[in-house]
């Protein structure tokens, strides 16, 4: 009962079919943006600047990939800000408690943070499925719980992670790019593997493409959903680790802004909010679009509020492109 991510392209007579356009539009937008910024300011096109963009994008990329799985299922997960904060803070506490350097047992804090993310996602999924609360409400509420929990854990303080070994995520470079970019790349490959090579990944598309059908075919939809939210939690935790690696600080505010960034990135990347379409590569392109705009706007010297406006317009454009309006009779 495999369902493919994008339906077979229907070639229209002459020219590019709609599906091809939908598939490649985000990448096209990214290239056009990069060309635009490069024309305005040649220094945009330097390797060092790409490294800067990727450093900024890595944590958000992890979070966006996590929520991509959920959006493919046709649900939504808005718990990322709370989850990221809790994971960052619990990582920092454990890391310092176990010795404060990766060379000691403190490395255990890394898997522990991922586990914390998984548990939060699992609970999130259970609340959504068992209590039959719409995912957007359940996850939003869980996000608030997470932010509150992180607040209680830190008492409003910020925890510094000074370990040189852990901070080498940012300071050590291979081929001009810091280690955290490669770590993020590894997680993208894992996500791609899950999406395309595992039953779970296929099931996400099945649920998103037609939940009734999937259920009727004997798929335990509830189980897939809970596993999806758990997986998303793990990726949120990965985002938290990279965010701490980037700034060297874990605090309640670590999760700030991730909701807007990641949902925008997923949508701009071409993953449809009603599920079944899109995937990890779309999200990668979407995240890059968002951060290329963020970086490019400053590089060419445009004020920040223009940046938000441009992102808003891009979201609308992305949804227009990825929606087949003929097939939708009404919008709610």
């Amino acid at each position, binding site marked *: 009962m495999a369902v493919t991510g994008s339906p077979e392209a229907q070639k229209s007579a002459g020219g590019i079919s709609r599906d091809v356009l939908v598939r490649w539009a985000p990448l096209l937008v990214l290239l056009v943006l990069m060309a635009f910024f490069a024309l305005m300011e040649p220094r945009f096109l330097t390797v060092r600047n790409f490294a800067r963009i990727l450093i900024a994008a890595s944590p958000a990329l992890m979070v966006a990939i996590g929520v991509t799985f959920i959006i493919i299922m046709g649900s939504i997960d808005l718990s990322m800000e709370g989850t990221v904060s809790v994971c960052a803070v619990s990582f920092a506490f454990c890391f310092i408690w176990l010795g404060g350097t990766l060379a000691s047992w403190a490395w255990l804090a890394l898997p522990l943070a991922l586990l914390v993310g998984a548990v939060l996602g699992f609970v999130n999924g259970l609340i959504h499925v068992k209590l039959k609360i719409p995912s957007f409400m359940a996850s939003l509420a869980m996000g608030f719980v997470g932010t509150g929990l992180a607040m209680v854990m830190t008492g409003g303080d910020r925890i510094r992670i000074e370990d040189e070994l852990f901070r080498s995520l940012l300071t050590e470079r291979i081929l001009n790019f810091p280690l955290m970019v490669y770590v993020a790349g590894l997680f993208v490959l894992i996500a791609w593997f899950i999406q395309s090579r595992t039953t779970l990944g296929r099931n996400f598309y099945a649920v998103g493409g037609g939940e009734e059908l999937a259920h009727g075919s004997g798929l335990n939809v509830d189980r897939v959903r809970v596993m999806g939210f758990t997986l998303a939690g793990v990726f949120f935790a990965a985002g938290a680790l990279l965010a701490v690696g980037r700034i060297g600080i874990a605090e309640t505010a670590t999760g700030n802004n991730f909701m807007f960034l990641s949902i925008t990135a997923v949508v701009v990347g071409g993953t449809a909010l009603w599920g079944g379409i899109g995937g990890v590569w779309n999200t990668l392109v979407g995240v890059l679009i968002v951060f290329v705009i963020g970086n490019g706007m400053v590089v*060419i010297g445009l004020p920040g509020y223009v940046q938000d406006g441009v992102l808003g317009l891009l979201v609308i454009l992305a949804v227009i492109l990825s929606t087949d309006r003929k097939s939708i009779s009404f919008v709610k």
Partner: protein
Amino acid sequence: MSFIKKFIEQETVNRRNFLFASAYGVGGAAAMGMFGPGMARAALTDPTIAWSYRNRTNPYWNEIVSGGEAFVESLGMSKDALTHLINEGSSEKSLADVKALLAKSNGNLALAIDTNDAPNARPVVEAVAEAGAYVSTLWNKTDDLHPWDFGDNYVSHMSWSDEGPAEQTARILLDAMGGKGGVVHLGGIASNNPAIERLQGLKNALKDYPDVELLAAEPADWDTQKANQVMSAFLTRYGDEITGVHCANDTIAYGVLEALRAEGIEGMPIVSYDGNPQAVGLVAEMKILATVFTNPHWGGGITASLAYHAATGAFKPSDEPNEHREFYGPTIMVQPEDALEFKASYLDSVPTYDWADFWGPSNGPIVYK
């Protein structure tokens, strides 16, 4: 044209009546005055003490509220006795919470509040005064709203003017740059008053340094991660032209430092603001050249203390001069040579303040431009 004539006549009569009424009113007030201050509303006993603020996730507000808690503890109560009204950045919620608490406590309330935005201060103060409770405000109020217009119930307002201190830090920065080169400013949320004042402080200082160019000023929303991104982009745009960074607050400076660390840039002159413990540590290490401590702990405690002591009748606000009712909070410049001493006396152990010394550390009356 008779209606005009009629209108003028009416107005004349009205004005005459108004003058009579005023004279009567003044005479009445004077007559009441003869009976002494005992005529004023009776003081409250054991009022509920509340702090209304945005939330505690921000280290600055966390300090403010911890000061409020320290004050409550100084009264011999547990710190849980302080009622927290958390508005999460909503003025509507701020006002609704205050009204609810006024109803619940039946006006037996000593309230310390930041009303979230300036226009919200008036309805809050009016609601409190109407219920016979007492309020002291921090940061936000409009320029036409004054404590002395509300008798005793609007006890005091404290704020900070950041322009002067920000100018001082800017001068330290510009001197460290050798009076030449390029400076970038990373600001707070563009519409926030402190953000505007701190940028203005830099601009004031720059007038005396003609060889320093302000390359760019971009809002970083008081946010470490945003500041990190903005600084990276500045490095792409200006590269080596940047020889100094002026940050609107400490959390922004942390993001800037990490952006520089990622590029292997060390020794860039940076100044910031707020005097958070971590920033003071960085000042001691010379990674930040100066920050400004505004003693939020004292500010939070004394605001609650003023409302409480006015409510219990320990002092009578209307007997105090205006500069005791609208005043600036303290500012202390922290630089590398005194950072450790400052840290020891203010941060490592929070000083025990005399919460009845209302105006000792304050910084003069508020001046309106």
